[in-house]
């Protein structure tokens, strides 16, 4: 097996260029690549498109500022494609002020659109959103009397994901609910950078129990 480069968070962040579509793993503060997010804030890169489950939890009073919230505050995104922004008032503010475009996507549709991108599908037919604002501008297809929306693949330029364990080849194992969007984003982006809590030797992971095969991963960053 080929070993993947182990790089710093700053080196990783430097691969994200203005205009890029960036997929960030995690779910309301669980399983986010925190060191990569921090490095991307430090890089000062702007004009990005975010694909994530949410924009993190930002609560100044309680001192919570997780997930992509630091990037939201840094105004890194021109477009924000997520399922939920209710825990980050700053996202709401930017949306209302017209500072960024927020596209709300049902969570299951978001997951399937990311998976479709990584799996070579043009899109999928889902019943979710039929009869709601979500169907606007989309093709509706009726199969056996049931309506479905055609939802198209959502690929990215760079995926910033978080794993519990990576072997040096890039095989990944996630922990509990910190798995969430990370494995599907790993399939869907040109460049995949994983922040791993532990980096182990090739052969230490059970081949029946690898969540993300090594071939999807380009770079490994040691989590802090």
């Amino acid at each position, binding site marked *: 097996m080929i070993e993947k480069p182990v790089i710093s968070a700053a080196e990783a962040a430097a691969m994200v260029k203005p205009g890029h579509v960036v997929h960030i793993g995690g*779910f*309301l*503060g*669980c*399983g986010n690549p925190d060191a990569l997010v921090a490095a991307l804030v430090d890089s000062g890169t702007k004009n990005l498109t975010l694909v994530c*489950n*949410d924009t993190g*939890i930002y609560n100044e009073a309680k001192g919570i500022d997780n997930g992509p919230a630091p990037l939201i505050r840094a105004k890194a995104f021109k477009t924000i494609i*997520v*399922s*939920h*922004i*209710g*825990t980050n008032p700053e996202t*709401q503010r930017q*949306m209302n002020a017209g500072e960024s475009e*927020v596209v*709300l996507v*049902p*969570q*299951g*549709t*978001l*997951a*399937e659109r*990311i*998976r479709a991108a990584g799996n070579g599908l043009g899109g999928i037919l*889902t*019943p*979710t*959103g*039929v*009869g*709601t*604002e*979500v169907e606007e501008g989309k093709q509706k297809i009726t199969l056996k009397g049931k309506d479905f929306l055609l939802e198209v693949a959502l690929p990215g330029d760079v995926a910033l994901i978080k794993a*519990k364990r990576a072997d040096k080849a890039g095989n990944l194992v*996630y*922990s*509990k*609910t*910190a*798995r*969430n*969007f*990370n*494995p*599907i984003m790993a399939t869907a982006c040109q460049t995949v950078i994983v922040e791993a809590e532990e980096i182990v030797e090739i052969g230490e992971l059970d081949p029946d129990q690898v*969540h993300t095969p090594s071939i999807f991963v380009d770079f490994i960053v040691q989590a802090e």
Partner: protein
Amino acid sequence: MIEYVENKQIIARRIARFFKSGDVVNLGIGLPTMVGNFVPEGVTVILQSENGLMGLGPAPEKGHEDKDLTNAGGMPVTVLTGGCFFDSATSFGIIRGGHVDFTVLGVLEVDQEGNLANYKIPGKMVPGMGGAMDLVAGSKKVITATTHLEKSGTSKLRTRCALPLTAAHEVDIVVTDVGYFDVHDGAFHLREYFAPYTPEWIVEHTNATVVVDPGCFEFA
């Protein structure tokens, strides 16, 4: 004269009675989460959490939180023995694929056509739909849990939702703190009422078509 007093507990207690052992249930954040506390003894339901968990357990004791183990609200939880974890595509495959028996969620409005609205007040508050649209479109039975009246005194049960819909024609059951309704054929069918409220009071205090079911009785 009956005075309306909010009572979330009765809502949670009644909803918990719908379940039988083996049912897979997804409970939304807030009031729906309370339902878990009222599942009768001897009934074992399996709680699904859409962030990627089957077999959701109670909150951990203080100091025993695991940063990698949260619910769909990002709060620390535990997993029961025999539970398991999966990614978001699988989680919503379970939901959309009809493998969840009941989804329980809160509403801003629900109407007699089975429409519900709970993710957006245009120009005011837009939290986003999160997993709600998939849960409502995919679960076998959709139960909405809501206090009956707004602070203004209008009921949350409507003839027609005014807010953007979370899903169209998907609500099966509405449980408020005054009674339990089946939703079909363009009406809320009152099946059970909760004292001190009476069917008459409920019909009068609901801004929609309420049909009192012939077998309607008082739930205790």
